[in-house]
């Protein structure tokens, strides 16, 4: 029963730490430790980040649990603190504006969302939000891409989805990623609308959610083709990059970072 023994040891260590902490916490303010700090700080509430997904009439959730899995991976790999259960919002809901990030998945076609919903999405983007569209067909059907293009044409008149260049900061916001892989690897690039110095909308066409989603059994629901586990790992890395870009924007394009990366030959 090694597992039980480790649990006991961990529990004992926790109790010791708690016992050691109490007298220090009882001290008067102003008595700082050797570093000038209190090394035994109590945990506080955490400011979490939601990864909401848009719900609409139709196939709005072709890869159930994809965002939840991404939230887990973000917590494990980065300092982001996503919520454990990402929310689901509708375009006409006031909760749309609870988070300046929105994940929109779809398969086949994206049905019309209605004028009110489109107005809300336009305001969402104008105020600084970012929408990631994920085509679950992975390149087999261009219906979703066509409808997303039309939708964006209506809510961002004059803007067009264009190829996000390979040297865009999106590919190095956390990992150095060369190709935006998903469940498939049909496309070697993503499309985006770049305005006001930021990506307002992103269209991923390699079924990113399909690579992330895990079923009740704990196993990944869909196989990644043709690269298998490696491709899935790269899909996770790209998904992490998207969220780091969403929260830090072009932070990794700052001169200090670029110079350091080039100096270390870690980025071409």
């Amino acid at each position, binding site marked *: 029963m090694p597992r039980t023994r480790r649990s006991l040891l961990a529990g004992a260590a926790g109790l010791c730490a708690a016992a050691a902490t109490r007298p220090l916490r009882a001290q008067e303010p102003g008595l700082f430790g050797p570093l000038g700090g209190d090394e035994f*700080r*109590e945990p506080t509430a955490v400011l979490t980040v939601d990864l909401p997904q848009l719900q609409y009439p139709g196939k709005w959730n072709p890869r159930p649990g994809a965002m939840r899995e991404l939230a887990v991976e973000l917590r*494990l*790999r980065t300092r982001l603190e996503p919520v454990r259960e990402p929310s689901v919002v509708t375009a006409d809901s006031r909760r749309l504006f609870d988070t300046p990030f929105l994940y929109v998945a779809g398969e086949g076609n994206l049905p019309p969302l209605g004028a009110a919903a489109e107005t809300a999405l336009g305001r969402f983007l104008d105020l600084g939000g970012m929408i990631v569209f994920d085509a679950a067909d992975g390149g087999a059907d261009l219906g979703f891409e066509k409808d997303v293009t039309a939708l964006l044409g209506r809510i961002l008149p004059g803007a067009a989805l264009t190829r996000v260049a390979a040297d865009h900061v999106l590919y190095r916001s956390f990992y150095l990623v060369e190709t935006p892989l998903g469940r498939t690897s049909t496309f070697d690039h993503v499309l985006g609308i770049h305005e006001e110095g930021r990506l307002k909308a992103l269209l991923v066409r390699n079924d990113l959610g399909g690579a992330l989603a895990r079923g009740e059994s704990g196993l990944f629901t869909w196989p990644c083709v043709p690269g298998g586990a490696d491709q899935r790992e790269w899909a996770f890395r790209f998904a992490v990059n998207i969220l780091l870009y969403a929260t*830090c924007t072009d*932070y990794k394009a700052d001169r200090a970072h670029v110079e350091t990366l080039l100096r270390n030959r*870690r980025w071409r």
Partner: protein
Amino acid sequence: MERWRITAGHVPGPFGLVLVLAAVVLAIVEAARAYRKPVPGVSPRLRAALFALRCAGALALLAVALELSLSFETTSSAGPRLVVLVDDSASMGVADAESPGQKAMRRIDRVRELWRRSEPARAAWKEQGLAVQVRRFGEGSEPLTGETEATLDLAARQPASDLTRAFAELAAVDPAVDPRPLAGVIVVSDGLFDRADRGADDPLVLAGRELGVPITAVAAGAPHLVDLALTELRAGEFAFVENVVEFAADIEAHGLEGAKTEVVLRRDGQVVATEPFVAPASGQTTVRFEVAPDRVGQFVYEIEVRPVEGEASPHNNRRAFVVKVLRDKVRALHVAGRPDWDVRALRTLLGRDPNVELLSYYILRGADDADREDPFAPLSLIAFPTDELFKEQLGSFDLVILHNFDALNHQVGRYLPDIGRYVEEGGALVMIGGDMGLATGDYPAPALSAVVPVDLRVPTGLDTEAFRPTVTDAGRRHPITAWIDHSGLSNWTALPPLDSYNPAKLARHEAEIGSAVLLRHPEGGPLLTIAEPGRGRVLVLSTGASWRLGFHADLPIVDGARPYDLLWLGAIRWLLRDSAADRLTLETDRPTYLLGAPITLRAAALSPSYAPEAGVEIGWRVQPLGRAADDPGADPNAPVTILSQGTWTTDALGRASETLAGGLSVGAYEAVAQRAGGDEAAAAPQQARRVFLVQAAGRELTRLASGPGDERLKRLADATGGRFLRAADDDLPAAPPLAPDRQDRERVDSRRDIPVWSGGVAMVLLVVCLGGEVLVRRRIGLA
């Protein structure tokens, strides 16, 4: 000669005049008929006497009715006028010579010699009946009289030379005051006038033509000049701190080929750059200075080419100008302990501003994340250069933002005292709350605590209940948050609620560092607190949810901006001491004044909460900036002489002002206002400063070479039919060119009026004559 005439003091209207004249004529005609008609018993002598009485009475009536007076005038013939205009400006005091070997002579002395030499010609002018009027001109013109007229003993110190204006003053002479017709003008000058020479359209020539008489021009200058002059200056009114700006000066050299000197650039009297200078044979050289102002403010710069021995004038060797140095790019360090929407919002705002040079370091993964990571995963992460940021480069930042940053976990704890000192020495610090940093007590350094208005000794924890802040009285006035009240949003119902709060407490020393709470949590705790410790400024925002002010379904837009932008842009302006956010301001009504013009200083005082501060005592003074412009030999380290000073007490609106009567000489000056009791060295915010220049009206001594002046004078003479002469070679002409169609006029030298109607004489005469006639007629039976 003398003459007399009868004048009427009162002329009645036409009807009245006809009536009076008719009555007089009728009376005289009736009397004449009576005189001619023989009457028995009445002798012709008696009839004649009656007629005489009637006539005298009628005339007396006329005198009274028309208020007649006798006018006696002494007149003389007014001959044509010849005006001699002599230049009395400073350039006439410059010495030059006919050739390099000759001894230099001041131009005004050359003119004086000409005047003496031309005495016979002057006598001839009078013999010809010319009325000679000698006037000097500089900024204006005025007649010379007595000894000065006879010798032309002029000082040549006028700061400008405006012949066009002198011509205009001649043209404006009222003929009633001086009826002598202008027949000719003689101009004696070096031809270096204020107004620009525009060739064919030269306003001077046009004004000369307007006089309608020949203008004889006598050039006072000589071709050989020894001088260095700073003729043109190219400098903008604004520069940016730490950015290279160029100041260029054109230096004109005459007669100093090969002479070595140097050109210096001063800021507020202190030399900041020097360039060697070797004088060319003749002509213009451009000297350029490239400087990077090291601080923001208003400064007087001066470029001077150091005088060389024998120069005609040292006063044209330097020029001063005022430059306002602005902040170019604000260098901001943004350190965040975790990426989130609040970090994103602030980064987007700062990154969007082209005036902000943003250096960001965000902690993207923790130590436990790193342990889990595939060691071969290609990451874009770089080491957190703590020593470089918080030790070596800290002073280079205008603004440091610690955003939800767990400093102790990232070995920044040891640098916290440095951040405290950075603030003390003038830096700006922002601390933003969240679930780390303030919440976890990550800033536990006494030196940092001493400059922060909230208590950093205790972790505040994090409250995630949504709340609507309240705006304090100070917040309603303060530039960071005043927009909330001005927009009618102070009850916060139209603004998004915030959903994170670090329940901080104010530090015990908060009053000592001039703190103010601008926004509060509904339960009373400070949410947005500012302070001014030492020379720096600190802002603590005890929430990590301010991003919600920029992203909400019903977000109000205020003056075209999101509330989030207004809050943070106001905060940054205040933190960086944007002049609009200073609590003591001093302004002059202009940066540059003409000599003698009044100078107005205005101050305004605001309290720490930005309310107008009444009753504040402000000491003010005006002093020369660096060395006096007119004193090249002054010791730059000598104590500054205060030229004017006093104390203001601000009015109910926190204002005070003073107007100086304009007694300052040409030069650069500094006006300083300081709150009474403020420590000038340590508390810079308590002091305000402005610089200004006092300059002469023209640029009289900018260019001294006589050649261009001679050409201009010659053109003037040619255009008006006059002659061009040189003072060194020629005498004044005995018969100067004069207008051909002139006509002599009679001039009344004196006039005396004797009223015949007043004083009772006319009335007595009237009564005696008319009454006597009636009485006589009765006695002889004619009535």
